[in-house]
């Protein structure tokens, strides 16, 4: 593809961004399923899932912080030019929401354990005072936002599939793990 030097942009995400995306996608979906199922489980699996949930939540907090840095510092491919403004806005808003929820969920988990007076994994410090009412609020928020995160992930997945299978515009390929760097003119 031949473009003027100024207008040539990468059509795929940086490999680090793609690695973070897919790693977090797997972890987040696993976390959501573990989260909603463990609360109604009273077998020893409950104990195991709870430990796994806390450890993975902490890992996801570190990963999302790294990912925000990557998102802000590395160039990312633009959306195809023929996307209507409303869809363009929806894409931006849903990504902002995803980032917000990915950041909020582990912090709410950490906060609700702190407010519930529970000891924390790795003896991390409490980030909220021991307060039963605050615990209730944070726990409710953790639950409600968990469902919102799942809904947002579904919308995100649906949009990606429409891009790949209906519009066939290369948007999914730009995040595909094995995609090679292709330049594109804008």
């Amino acid at each position, binding site marked *: 593809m031949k473009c003027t030097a100024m207008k040539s942009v990468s059509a795929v995400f940086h490999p680090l961004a793609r690695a973070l995306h897919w790693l977090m996608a797997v972890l987040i979906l696993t976390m*959501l*399923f573990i989260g*909603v*199922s463990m*609360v*109604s*489980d*009273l*077998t*020893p*699996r*409950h*104990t195991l899932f709870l430990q796994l949930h806390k450890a993975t939540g902490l890992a996801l907090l570190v990963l999302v912080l790294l990912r925000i840095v990557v998102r802000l510092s590395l160039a990312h491919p633009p959306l195809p030019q023929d996307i209507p403004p409303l869809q363009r806005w929806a894409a931006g808003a849903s990504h902002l929401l995803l980032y917000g929820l990915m950041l909020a969920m582990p912090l709410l988990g950490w906060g609700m354990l702190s407010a*519930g*007076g*529970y*000891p924390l994994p790795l*003896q991390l410090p409490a980030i909220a005072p*021991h*307060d*039963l*009412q605050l*615990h*209730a*609020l944070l*726990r*409710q928020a953790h639950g409600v936002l968990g469902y919102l995160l*799942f809904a947002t992930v*579904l919308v995100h*997945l*649906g949009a990606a*599939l*429409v891009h790949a*299978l*209906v*519009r*066939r*515009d*290369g948007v999914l390929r730009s995040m595909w793990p094995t995609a090679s760097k292709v330049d594109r003119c804008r």
Partner: protein
Amino acid sequence: MSTPLHGPAKAVRLAAIGLGLTALGALFVYAAGGFGHAHLTPQRIIDTFEAQAGHYPGFRKNHAKGLCVSGYFQSSGLAASLSSARVFSQPRVPVIGRFAIGGANPHSPDTSVPTRSLAIQLSSDDGQVWRTGMNSPPVLAVSTPEAFYEQVLAATPDPVTGKPDPARLQAFFAAHPQSAAFRQWAAVYKPSDSFANTDYNSLNAFRLIDTAGQAHPVRWRLVAQAPFAALPAQVDDQQFLQHDLNQRLAQAPLRWTLRLSLAEPGDPIDDPARAWPAERRSVDAGTLVIERVDAPEQGACRDLNFDPLILPRGIEPSADPILAARSAAYAESFKHRSRESLSPGARP
């Protein structure tokens, strides 16, 4: 890059995407229990407690009536070779605790319930926390959460008499031969006149992990140092045990010996209904000293979940299914009462 699809091909693919997303969404709802649960859940247990005893917003959903105490644990050092947990070597570990009577009604008379409990939190100087909830019976009547639930149902109070139907209880025990040890205990059980001269048992087994990583299956018991005295036949004071505890603590601290009982190969580690032979090696790990009592339902213990799986490094759970179920059900109770605390006046 290919061209966008149009017409029927587009419709088919959109429908397939919609179907896929719906399936994933339905799977999530299923995992969350949206289509009901075939298995026993902590929610069902807590709901059943409330259905039987009544709804008392803000209170614990079992062992609802109790009071907060504080003191310390004085380690003897004798258990330090069995577990690397700091509580077994630190000379003085701060303790927050709660004495309670069994049952989900926070207004029951103190002496109307045979089961008494003591839950404590030990906070050692390495930042580790140990919570353990102990009951007066040495064993449970059941080995599984499902059988426990059946026991709760069998003990449903008769709406006329307000007491469990003896025939129904008898039928339950007949159908659950593993309750033999519990029934033997209940047959000779003589209630004492105080929380202070009651022994409290861990019920479940745990694993002490020593510095070499070796596991030692263990149960523990707080053995009262105050001498036994039988409960008077006639007690009119509904707060008899609470008043007694206040009086005793106004005079002097109260003491219990923390006695560890160590299993031999072949002992039932994961079955809380079966006692271990009395001759098993025991180790006195230290002395629990209770110094102060707070007002009923007030104090530092109130907003703690005494989840028996909050363990320090050096103590691990056994595979006892009731231990995991206790942890899950306590969490559910804590969720209920913390949520209820948001409504005005719903705090004990």
